[in-house]
């Protein structure tokens, strides 16, 4: 056993986990703030811990920006009464929230979030089948929701669970098909190779080379993460919250945070596949870092791209109304899957001609 490898991997896992959990907490804050601004409100601006007073000058500003709100939210989720209704199926009721949270986090293992720090590659597991791994894990995400719907043993959660299983399976196909052209171009399933193929110029980014693939992937990502306009499994206005109707306190929080974690991992996927990962096409920032500072800069670039995409996803929620269920299925099966298939054929054809 290689102890150094183990230690570095463990360190990377811990750091990524901590950063992602913080990001999840603040993504919730951003969501609340953005929605508030769009709806002429101010959003959370009262959470005021005792130590905020002692921060010179910035203290009260931070309070008004709601910086401390995630702490209050977390405290609330932990301290709230954890209520288990009498009619639920206990075992499934307990494991469903965990199953909703874990896959989203597991996906991040193969995302290269930076080039190098010293000799360490900034990715937890540099798998050769990277993207297949992600899709495999993402496809497990549906279990949390289906089981939650089944465990709750009442009608709205059940409908939510059924909807989500149909929706997730349908859009998984579209999502999987949409990225095939990208891998045809790259010639490898390894995500680091995908990033390598996008260096050079801005036009090498796959979002410009494969706009159709990106579009299908984007829409499928919305459906996979249950975000509006495809949040039919939750659909507050129809299903009073769908699959997590019967949950409270920390179990509910796991579903809630799981959704944001899934958003983050899907955005990370998009950054890697279509936006060049940690590279920028200027100043030689598209080559693996030689020094520590450049390595950190690469991580920062990745982080910023991720944030832009996250805000985009959040914004869409307040912009578009929810689709009807039949429209959703129609869109998935009769529009996106054929488009993705055609895209594969065209890309393969063009590649074959060029290599002739």
């Amino acid at each position, binding site marked *: *056993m290689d102890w150094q490898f183990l230690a570095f991997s463990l360190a990377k896992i811990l750091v990524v986990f901590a950063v992602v959990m913080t990001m999840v907490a603040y993504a919730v804050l951003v969501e609340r703030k953005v929605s508030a601004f769009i709806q002429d409100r101010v959003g959370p601006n009262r959470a005021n811990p005792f130590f905020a007073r002692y921060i010179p000058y910035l203290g009260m500003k931070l309070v008004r920006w709601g910086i401390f709100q995630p702490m209050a939210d977390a405290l609330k989720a932990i301290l709230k009464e954890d209520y288990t209704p009498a009619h639920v199926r206990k075992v*499934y009721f307990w494991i469903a929230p965990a199953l909703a949270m874990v896959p989203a986090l597991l996906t991040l293992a193969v995302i290269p979030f930076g080039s190098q720090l010293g000799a360490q590659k900034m990715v937890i597991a540099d*798998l*050769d*089948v990277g993207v*297949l*791994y992600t*899709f*495999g*894990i*993402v*496809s*497990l995400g*549906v*279990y949390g929701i*289906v*089981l939650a719907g*089944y465990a709750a043993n009442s009608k709205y959660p*059940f409908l939510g*669970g*059924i909807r989500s*299983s*149909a929706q*997730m*399976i349908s859009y*998984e196909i579209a999502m999987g098909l949409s990225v095939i052209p990208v891998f045809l171009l790259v010639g490898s*399933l390894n995500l680091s190779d995908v990033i390598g193929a996008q260096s050079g110029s801005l036009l090498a980014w796959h979002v410009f080379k494969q706009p159709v693939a990106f579009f299908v992937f984007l829409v499928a990502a919305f459906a996979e993460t249950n975000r509006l306009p495809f949040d039919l499994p939750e659909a507050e206005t129809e299903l009073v919250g769908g699959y997590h109707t019967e949950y409270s306190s920390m179990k509910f929080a796991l579903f809630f945070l799981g959704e944001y974690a899934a958003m983050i991992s899907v955005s990370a996927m998009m950054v890697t596949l279509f936006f060049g990962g940690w590279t920028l096409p200027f100043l030689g920032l598209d080559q693996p870092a030689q020094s520590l500072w450049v390595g950190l800069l690469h991580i920062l670039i990745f982080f910023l791209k991720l944030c832009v995409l996250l805000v985009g996803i959040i914004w869409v929620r307040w912009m578009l109304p929810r689709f009807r269920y039949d429209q959703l299925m129609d869109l998935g099966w009769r529009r996106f899957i054929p488009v993705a298939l055609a895209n594969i054929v065209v890309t393969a054809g063009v590649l074959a001609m060029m290599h002739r």
Partner: protein
Amino acid sequence: MTDLLFVLFSALALLCGFLTVANPFTRSPVASALFLVLTMVWLAGLFVLLHAFFIAAVQILVYAGAVMVLFLFVIMLLDLREEERRRWNRFGVAAGLISVLGLLGITAVTLLRATPDGTGDAQLEGATHALGLMLFRQYLLPFEIVSVLLLVAMLGVILLSKRELK
């Protein structure tokens, strides 16, 4: 380490497989389906130990992620109580026996043919590229036959569901 993991994964796979078909605590089909999912996951673990990452990923993606979700979907829509009441069914037993015996035969033949020290077909290890080439060159015919089989199944489903509509 690898040996330990192998023992762990295979024991868990066997245990979950057993719980899938003969769970002493519950006869709920949902529980069976979930244990089947777990079996798939442990199998994928075994594939990883064999360095067959592609097959492991596909195992999770296709079986655990898609097929079993559809199973669950259908189970949830069915009347479960009837299923829980029913015990034996002659056709089911016969079909089960035949498929188990067939699988046993295939496994036995493969095991007997396997060389004890060799690593088998080294080309099939790991690299997706090599695997793809094998599939589309050497094993093209079986591959196509399997896809036709799937197509037949699909057509059958369409036929059955459409007939009910009429």
